[in-house]
């Protein structure tokens, strides 16, 4: 049957875009994180939604599992073919379909990379930008919205899934559906005022369908930008800083970072506040507002703005940021994974302490930080642990640290982001029974043959 299926796939996308080669299957079996490898039986690279539709019809008819991959950069192994079967690599689906300048949205195929969209907008619409995650630019738009990613405009616009204005999705049986305004109108301007069906596909780890097109909000790209970095030594003060700074609605992005390397950073908590402006006067006006907002803390000498010379600011204004990527190789050997935990902003101190305790217990190289999401209703708190991939004991140690972090994050009231399978199970364990039941019913409704990413969102 597999041979027939492979031939069927070749008929759909062309022979050169289907592979069963061992090398390819190995490459697709893993990512940069600590999760063990699972090889797909076949890898296929479709070019458009119709091809995805045909692939899913074929898989559904043959009850063959299907997994989906963007750039494979979640680091939590979400694209791994746990039950074998077909792995769909979305990267050929990278067209920019429409930019609506006045309504500030773009419609793209889901496999387009963040970098390609960024470069296109810079060249053709320099006054517009989309929110870039701090992932390598190869990360895809579809993959990132599907996992509720966040990025350098998240204070302004929330999670990247909040910035979605509409989706095109291929269901398990091959039907192509649309969510949001584009299901009624030619314009992909909003999810409202319709029943928000996009919620059936965002955060579901591709168990309900494969996102093939995304309508995404764009934001003004100001010609000038600045970063101010506040520093303190006490996490409770940092909570206060975050509360004050987010009370002032000038930032595009607010990030905290805490790391023991380099040595001068150890023990200090930093908060980067990044904002844009059309003119220098506006930039200074915003800087002064920010100062006034934390003035009482500065007067107490418990915080202050780091004196950054112009050339020093560049690293903080780079989009995407490169500091985490630098950290990724701190142990050499190229292993790096992080638990991104969604937590309410008021849990900052607990989340920070949790990270320090675990890093100390497991003796792992760590980098902690957070990105404030949507006016500070929540934050993505990240616990990054570097490890040497060539050292299995080191990998195991990092894996244990991550697992423990996930569990403790749930204990304090947070939820692991883009959770690895063990963490997915922990989340489901803690979840309200009726909610969980509804999730399973919806999955069954949309995927009766259980072919979509089996192994994910399962107890």
């Amino acid at each position: 049957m597999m041979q027939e299926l492979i031939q069927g796939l070749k008929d759909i996308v062309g022979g050169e875009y289907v592979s069963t080669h061992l090398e390819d299957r190995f490459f697709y079996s893993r990512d940069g994180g600590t999760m063990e490898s699972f090889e797909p039986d076949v890898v296929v690279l479709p070019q458009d939604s119709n091809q995805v539709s045909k692939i899913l019809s074929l898989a559904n008819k043959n009850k063959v599992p299907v997994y989906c991959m963007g750039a494979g950069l979640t680091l939590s192994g979400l694209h791994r073919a746990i039950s074998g079967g077909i792995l769909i690599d979305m990267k050929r689906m990278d067209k920019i379909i429409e930019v609506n300048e006045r309504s500030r949205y773009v419609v793209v195929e889901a496999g387009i990379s963040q970098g390609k969209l960024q470069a296109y907008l810079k060249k053709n619409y320099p006054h517009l930008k989309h929110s870039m995650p701090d992932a390598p630019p190869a990360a895809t738009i579809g993959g990132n919205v599907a996992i509720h990613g966040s990025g350098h405009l998240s204070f302004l616009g929330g999670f990247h899934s909040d910035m979605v204005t509409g989706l095109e999705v291929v269901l398990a049986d091959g039907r192509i559906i649309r969510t949001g305004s584009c299901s009624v109108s030619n314009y992909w301007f909003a999810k409202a005022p319709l029943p928000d069906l996009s919620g059936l596909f965002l955060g579901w780890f591709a168990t309900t369908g494969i996102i093939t097109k995304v309508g995404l909000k764009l934001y003004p790209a100001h010609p000038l930008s600045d970063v101010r970095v506040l520093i303190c030594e006490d996490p409770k003060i940092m909570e206060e800083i975050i509360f004050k700074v987010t009370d002032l609605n000038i930032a595009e992005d607010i990030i905290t970072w805490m790391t023991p390397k380099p040595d001068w950073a150890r023990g200090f908590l930093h908060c980067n506040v990044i904002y844009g402006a059309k003119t220098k006067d506006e930039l200074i006006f915003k800087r002064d507002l920010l100062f006034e907002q934390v003035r009482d803390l500065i007067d107490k000498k418990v915080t202050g703005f780091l004196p950054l010379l112009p050339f020093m600011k560049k690293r903080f204004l780079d989009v995407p940021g490169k500091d985490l990527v630098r950290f990724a190789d701190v142990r050499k050997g190229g292993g790096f994974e992080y638990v991104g935990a969604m937590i309410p902003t008021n849990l900052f101190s607990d989340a920070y302490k949790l990270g320090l305790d675990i890093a100390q217990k497991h003796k792992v190289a760590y980098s902690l930080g957070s990105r404030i999401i949507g006016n500070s209703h929540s934050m993505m708190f990240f616990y990054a642990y570097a490890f040497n991939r060539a050292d299995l004991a080191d990998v195991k140690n990092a894996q244990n640290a991550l697992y423990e972090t996930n569990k403790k994050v749930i204990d304090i009231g947070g939820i692991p982001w883009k959770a690895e399978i063990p963490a997915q199970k922990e989340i489901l364990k803690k979840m309200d029974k009726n909610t969980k039941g509804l999730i399973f019913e919806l999955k069954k409704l949309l995927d009766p043959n259980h072919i979509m990413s089996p192994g994910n969102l399962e107890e």
Partner: protein
Amino acid sequence: MYKLNYDPLICKGCKTIDCLVKCQYQDFKDINRAREEKNKILNGEYSKVLDDCRTCYGCEEYCPNNNHPFYQIVELQEKLNIKNVPDPIFKQQLRMMGPKNRIKTQSLKPPIIDMCLFPQLIDNIKGKLYEGASIIWGGDIFCNIMWLHCANMSVILDRLPKMIQNIYEYYIKQSETDEIICFHDECYGAFTQLAPAYGIDVPFKPVHIFEYISKKLDELKLHIKPLNQKIAYQRPCSNRLCSDMDEKLDEIFHKIGAIRVKRTYDKNTPLCCGSVLRIQQKDREADEIQRENISDMKGTGARIAVFNCPMCMMTLGEEVAAQGLFPLHVSDLVRHALGEI
């Protein structure tokens, strides 16, 4: 421990109180008020001067008796715990700029150029001016007198003697020279003014960058093409610890045919580049001073702004350029006259 060598009786008997009356950042037109505040300082009591001091080093230069009024202020600020920089910033900078114990013994060929903690300007050390030069820099030889801007003298007195010793032990002892060319005024001021004020021994010969360049220009006389350019000069705070060296700059300018334009904020009344005010969280004041400073530079008709202090250059360079002046380090100005740029 090291103790400041000054005579309080000289200050008590001072008729002019130049240290306060001439201050550019505090208003002491009334000499009686100045005397009142000075007496408080001499008695080790709180004075508003301690809070209002912008740490420009100016009073060290204004004092006709060389009685170290600025160091008196810094010592008292520290003693009374008057902080002009937020704690976490001070602590982090302290660690960032602390000794790294990475220094290694080297036999160096002269001239030995001490770049202090400014590797960013290493590219300036090239051409005929610096032919064959050896460069040293880093946290293990950092003069540390920047802590004067942070109301802290004890860190300087703790670190500076070790740094001096490092330079001697690791570099000078096995090299062919006992001269260290100080690229930054701060180092020169630390070795020749602050160290003697506290009785710290300096077992090598510090040479100011201006002295070195001026002498070198005599050797390179035949290569000089007079610039005939008007130059606005940014005199840094640390040069006020070695005022005599400012005359050396005039000598250099004369030799390369550059015209140091007369401006309000040069010589005895230079303005802070702004970096110190920013670390002290006084951004608005820094903006104003920078605006005033650059506008003064522009008003002279100069096309080039010349810097000696790397920190001034890194702080003001971009804005100066945005205002249409060409920012240059003094080394590069000289290289320009030597036809290398």
